[in-house]
């Protein structure tokens, strides 16, 4: 079970600015451990953000994204009090969903 994301969603003019911190190892599959064995790839593959049931962001990620990634994006049509739901899925099938209220 992975640690929760930190999500901030605030109004920036007429748009909603969402900032997300995710806790993830993001192993590339290129590294070796101290015994010389390859550390298997383990990274977030899909990220989606939904607002009122509508997908506002859908991203495919790969091993080039850093450990503990930070994602920032804006979308139109949100208002204070609405919820933004973020979900990520990694290449091992692990999944995490967290939500934040727009302020």
């Amino acid at each position, binding site marked *: 079970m992975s640690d*929760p994301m930190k999500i901030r969603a605030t109004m920036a003019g007429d748009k909603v600015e969402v900032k997300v*911190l995710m*806790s993830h*190892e993001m192993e590339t599959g290129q590294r070796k451990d101290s015994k010389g064995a390859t*550390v298997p790839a383990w990274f977030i593959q899909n990220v989606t953000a939904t607002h009122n049931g509508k997908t506002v962001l859908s991203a495919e990620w790969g091993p080039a994204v*850093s*450990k*503990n990634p*930070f994602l*920032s994006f804006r979308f139109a049509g949100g208002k204070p009090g609405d919820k933004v739901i973020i979900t990520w899925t990694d290449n091992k099938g692990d999944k995490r969903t967290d939500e934040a209220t727009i302020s």
Partner: protein
Amino acid sequence: MNRLAGAICTIFAAASIGTWAQFETSTSRTTVQEIERYREALADGNPAELWEARGEALWKEKRGPKGATLEQCDLGRGPGVVKGAYAQLPKYFADTNKVEDLESRLVTCMVTLQGFTPEQAKKDPFGGPGKKSNIEALVAYVTAASRGAPMNVSITHPREEEAYEIGKRIFFHRGGPHDFSCASCHGLDNQRIRLQDLPNLTRTADAQRAYTSWPAYRVSQGEVRSFQWRLYDCFRQQRFPELEFTSDASVALTMFLAKNANGGVFNAPSIKR
């Protein structure tokens, strides 16, 4: 012919030294600026917040043989007071009759309140690949509650004064295979290691800026690093014997550096390269 070739080579070498010198001064200045820009860009999404959140959960979680939380832990401002506590550490604690920094105090609380053995409490002081450090998470949580507080470390108690003096001795003590002291790198202006500018810790402004920026999220390591880690790694870089986690020597050196940062505004966990 040979002499001509030699002369050409000399001219060429002289010219390239000239350009190199110019190149170096102009890039070193912009490198510093670029590193600053990089830090600013990262500061907004500092992953240390993830450690702070995990630390807060650990602080409030019933753990150990006694099944207690750390919420009654006295960090120097009374049981359970976290806000502003780090800006006054290290300090003397009557219950242990010792000067303790944050990490050693956390160990004390984990032993007295939660019933862990000291060995269990000190296990995994620093996180690494595949292992998370509870201490570093707790440190992130407690230090974040001092953000904005001015550093105010006292050396009024004789034990505190003693720790400060010992810390000062350690800071200036030269030894090891490199015949290094902390002051070899941190007692002069404009020193650097690779591209990192090193603070001159004998100057108040530098000491304040440096101390108040630890703990920090190290992007290159993907971990939040505590001040105990900072000292541990400085000792390693000096090729000194390993600095034992929460040892009296580590606390004394922390005391010296923390006291010298008095008046500086605490602003961590920060983010570093």
